[in-house]
C-alpha cells in the first residue's frame, strides 16, 4: 500500500466515513489539512466566523441527521473556542468528531505560539480524546474516534493533530470493523430484565412513560409509540425527548419538570410506575429529589449504566439500546396477549384523572391588548409551519416557550441545548441542520440575548445561501434570569437589562439578508407569513411583552407539585 501523509489520511478517512460536510475555521497549525481538503475537493467545507459556531453547527448537523458531525479548528484559541460546543454535545450525547491542529510534537509543552493542552482541557467534556504523536497511529485513531463517537451512548471525540504529524508519512490502514477490548457498550438488553419489567407493567394501575433524548438518539420513536398505544400508557417527555412521541397524540402529556405541564408533573407525583426510557432523572426533571414520584416503582432503560441509579433508586434496571429494549418489551406485551381494551380498562380511571388535571390547568397565557405575547408567536409559528419545520432554539425563555407551544410530532425536528444550556447554540445549529437538509424549513427561535452570542454566523449562512429563518423574541432583557429575579430576588434586575440592542432588521440587511419587525399583535401573522415566504436568510423580530414569564414553573429545589401557574 502506498504511503500517505497525515493530512491525506484525514481527508481519506473522512471520505471512508461518509462525511460530506465539515464545519471549521483555519489557522497555522491546521493549514496543512485545509490545503489537502482544498486539493481533494470532494468534501464540502463550511467556513464559520467563530470556531464555537463550527462546533455547534456540527452538533446541529448530527442532531438533525443522526450522523456524526465533524468540525475542524486550529490550535490554541481555535481549539479552546470549540470547548463550549464540545461540552454542549457531550451533555446531550451527540456524536461528533473534532479535529484540532496542534503545534509540532517537538514544541509541545514549550508554551509555543498558539499552544494549548486541548486534550487536557477537553478530557472531562469528551467521550474520549487523542493526541496523535505518531503518524503511524493516525488512521486507526480516526477509525476509533468515529466508532466511539457514534456507538453506545454517543458523544464528542476530539483528535489533536500536531503539525508535523499532518505532514509525516505512513501506511494508511483503515479497517472496516474495529474492536476495542476496553470499550464494549451493552446494546442487547437482558431478556430476564424485560420479563421483570413486563410483570411490573402488567400490575401497574397508574403508569407513565418518561421519555428522554435516548429515544431520539436510538430512533426508538416507533417502538415507544407502539408500547404506549398497546398498553394505553400516557407519555411525558423531557426537553431532549420532545419529538420522540407525537406532541399531538392523545396519550401525550407534554414536557415534565421545571417548566413542564401541570398534568405531566401531577402524573409523575401520583404514578405507581415510571417507565424511564433514555432519560436521566436530571434535577430540572425531578425537582426536590426526596419528593419525586413518591409512589412509583421505576423501570429504567438506558444504554449508559451510569445513568441508572445515579439520582433515584431503580426497581428494574435495563441496560441496553432503547430501541431494542422497547421492541422486546412490546413483544412481551404481545406474547402475553392481553387485549388493548383490557389495558385501557385497567388505566381508565388514571387517564381520566390525567385529563382532569389537563383541563384544570392547561398550558396557557394571558392575552393583553396591544402587546405581543411570545407564546402567541410560537403558536402562530406552529400553525403556519404546520408543525413541519426543524426548530432550533437558543436557551432561556425562548427555548421553554418553544418547548411548550410548538407540538413536535417527529424526532430530530427539535434541536436545543438541554444539558449544558448553551446560549448561542440555536443559530449555528440551524446552519448545521440546513446544510444537511437544504430543502427543509429550518427556524431558529431566539431571544435578543442569545442571538447576539453567535450572530456573526449570519455571514456563514449568507456564504452558503442557507434560507434559515430566525425568530427573535425581543424583550430587551435576559428574560429567564430576569424572571428568577422577579420571583426570587425582589425584582432586583441585576445585569439583566440590555441598555443597547441592535436594530435586528438593519443587522439582517447589513449582511445582505432580509429583516421584518412586528410591534403589535396584529402584525405577528403578517410578519411570520412574509418572513417564511421570503427566500434566503431572514430575521423576524417580535417586540414581546417585556416582563412575560414562563409558566408553569417549579422553583429550583422545590417539589414538582409546587408549581407556579399562569
Amino acid at each position, binding site marked *: 500500500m502506498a504511503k500517505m501523509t497525515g493530512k491525506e489520511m484525514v481527508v481519506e478517512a473522512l471520505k471512508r466515513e461518509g462525511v460530506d460536510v465539515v464545519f471549521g475555521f483555519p489557522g497555522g497549525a491546521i493549514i496543512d489539512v485545509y490545503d489537502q481538503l482544498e486539493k481533494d475537493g470532494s468534501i464540502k467545507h463550511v467556513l464559520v466566523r467563530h470556531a464555537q459556531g463550527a462546533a455547534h453547527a456540527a452538533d446541529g448537523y448530527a442532531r438533525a441527521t443522526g450522523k456524526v458531525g465533524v468540525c475542524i479548528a486550529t490550535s490554541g484559541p481555535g481549539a479552546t473556542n470549540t470547548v463550549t460546543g464540545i461540552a454542549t454535545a457531550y451533555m446531550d450525547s451527540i456524536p461528533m468528531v473534532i479535529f484540532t491542529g496542534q503545534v509540532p510534537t517537538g514544541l509541545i509543552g514549550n508554551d509555543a505560539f498558539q499552544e494549548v493542552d486541548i486534550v*487536557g482541557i477537553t*478530557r*472531562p467534556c469528551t467521550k*474520549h480524546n487523542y493526541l496523535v504523536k505518531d503518524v503511524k497511529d493516525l488512521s486507526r485513531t480516526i477509525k476509533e474516534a468515529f466508532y466511539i463517537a457514534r456507538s453506545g451512548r454517543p458523544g464528542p471525540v476530539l483528535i489533536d493533530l500536531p503539525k508535523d504529524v499532518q505532514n509525516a508519512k505512513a501506511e494508511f490502514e483503515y479497517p472496516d470493523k474495529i474492536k*476495542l477490548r*476496553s*470499550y464494549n457498550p451493552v446494546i442487547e438488553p437482558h431478556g430476564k430484565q424485560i420479563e421483570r419489567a413486563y410483570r411490573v407493567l402488567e400490575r401497574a394501575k397508574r403508569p407513565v412513560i418518561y421519555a428522554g433524548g435516548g429515544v431520539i438518539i436510538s430512533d426508538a420513536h416507533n417502538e415507544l409509540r407502539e408500547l404506549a398505544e398497546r398498553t394505553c400508557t400516557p407519555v411525558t417527555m423531557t426537553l431532549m425527548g420532545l419529538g420522540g412521541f407525537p406532541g399531538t397524540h392523545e396519550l401525550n402529556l407534554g414536557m415534565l419538570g421545571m417548566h413542564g405541564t401541570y398534568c405531566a408533573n401531577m402524573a409523575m407525583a401520583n404514578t405507581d410506575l415510571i417507565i424511564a426510557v433514555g432519560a436521566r432523572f436530571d434535577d430540572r426533571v425531578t425537582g426536590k429529589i426526596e419528593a419525586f414520584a413518591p409512589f412509583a416503582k421505576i423501570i429504567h432503560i438506558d444504554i449508559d*449504566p*451510569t445513568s441508572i*441509579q445515579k439520582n433515584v433508586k431503580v426497581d428494574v434496571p435495563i441496560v441496553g439500546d432503547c430501541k431494542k429494549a422497547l421492541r422486546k418489551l412490546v413483544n412481551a406485551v404481545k406474547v402475553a396477549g392481553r387485549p388493548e381494551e383490557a389495558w385501557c380498562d385497567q388505566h381508565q380511571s388514571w387517564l381520566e384523572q390525567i385529563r382532569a388535571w389537563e383541563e384544570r390547568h392547561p398550558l396557557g397565557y394571558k392575552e393583553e391588548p396591544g402587546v405581543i405575547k411570545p407564546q402567541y408567536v410560537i403558536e402562530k409559528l406552529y400553525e403556519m409551519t404546520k408543525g413541519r419545520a426543524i426548530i432550533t432554539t437558543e436557551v432561556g425563555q425562548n427555548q421553554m416557550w418553544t418547548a411548550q407551544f410548538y407540538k413536535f410530532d417527529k424526532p430530530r425536528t427539535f434541536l436545543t441545548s438541554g444539558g449544558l444550556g448553551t446560549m448561542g447554540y440555536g443559530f449555528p445549529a440551524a446552519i448545521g441542520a440546513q446544510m444537511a437538509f437544504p430543502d427543509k424549513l429550518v427556524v431558529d427561535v431566539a431571544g435578543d440575548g442569545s442571538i447576539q452570542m453567535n450572530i456573526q454566523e449570519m455571514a456563514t449562512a449568507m456564504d452558503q445561501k442557507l434560507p434559515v429563518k430566525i425568530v427573535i423574541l425581543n424583550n430587551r432583557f435576559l428574560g429567564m434570569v430576569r424572571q428568577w429575579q422577579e420571583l426570587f430576588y425582589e425584582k432586583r434586575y441585576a445585569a439583566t437589562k440590555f441598555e443597547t440592542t441592535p436594530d435586528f432588521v438593519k443587522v439582517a440587511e447589513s449582511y445582505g439578508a432580509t429583516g421584518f419587525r412586528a410591534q403589535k399583535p396584529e402584525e405577528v401573522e403578517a410578519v411570520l407569513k412574509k418572513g417564511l415566504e421570503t427566500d434566503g436568510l431572514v430575521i423576524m423580530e417580535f417586540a414581546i411583552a417585556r416582563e412575560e414569564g414562563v409558566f408553569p414553573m417549579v422553583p429550583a429545589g422545590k417539589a414538582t407539585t409546587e408549581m407556579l401557574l399562569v
Partner: protein
Amino acid sequence: MKHTLSVLVENTPGALSRITGLFSGRGFNIESLSVAATLDPTLSHLTLVTSGDDFIIEQIIKQLNRLVDVYKVVDVSEGDFVEREMALIKVRAEAETRAEILRMCDIFRCKVVDVSPKTYTIEITGPESKLKAVIELLKPLGIKEITRTGTIAIIREKKTA
C-alpha cells in the same frame, strides 16, 4: 465504607489523568492510589482505595467502566482479599531509644534498611491498620520523614476445590 478497587487500564498517556479527573470532577474521594505495569505491557494495574455508601461505590465503578481506556474494574473488598502497603519511616534513634526501636521492629517484623548515627530508616509492610499502629508507636520517638506506597490488593483464591 472503605472499598478497595482493582482497575486494569490501557497503558496509554492520559489514562491515569482520566481516572483521577473523574474522581475530582464528580466529587468522589481517593484515599490511596497505586499504579504499576502488569505482565502485559499494554495494561496497567491500579489499586484505588475510596469510600462512600453503596450508592456512591456503584456509581464510581460504573463511571470507571464508562471510561474508554478502562478494561476491568473489580471491587476486591466485596469478598476475601489480601491487602498490603509498604512504608519507609525515618525515625530519630538516639542512644537511649535505639534498642527500643529495634525491639519494636522485631515485634512488627519491620526491617531496618538504613542506619545513621542519629536515625534508623525502617521498612514496614502490612495492611494499613498495621502501618497505622507502628506509626502511632514511633511518633513519640520522633518520626523525621515518612513515605508510603498506598495500598495494593489481590483477591484470595478459594480454599476448597
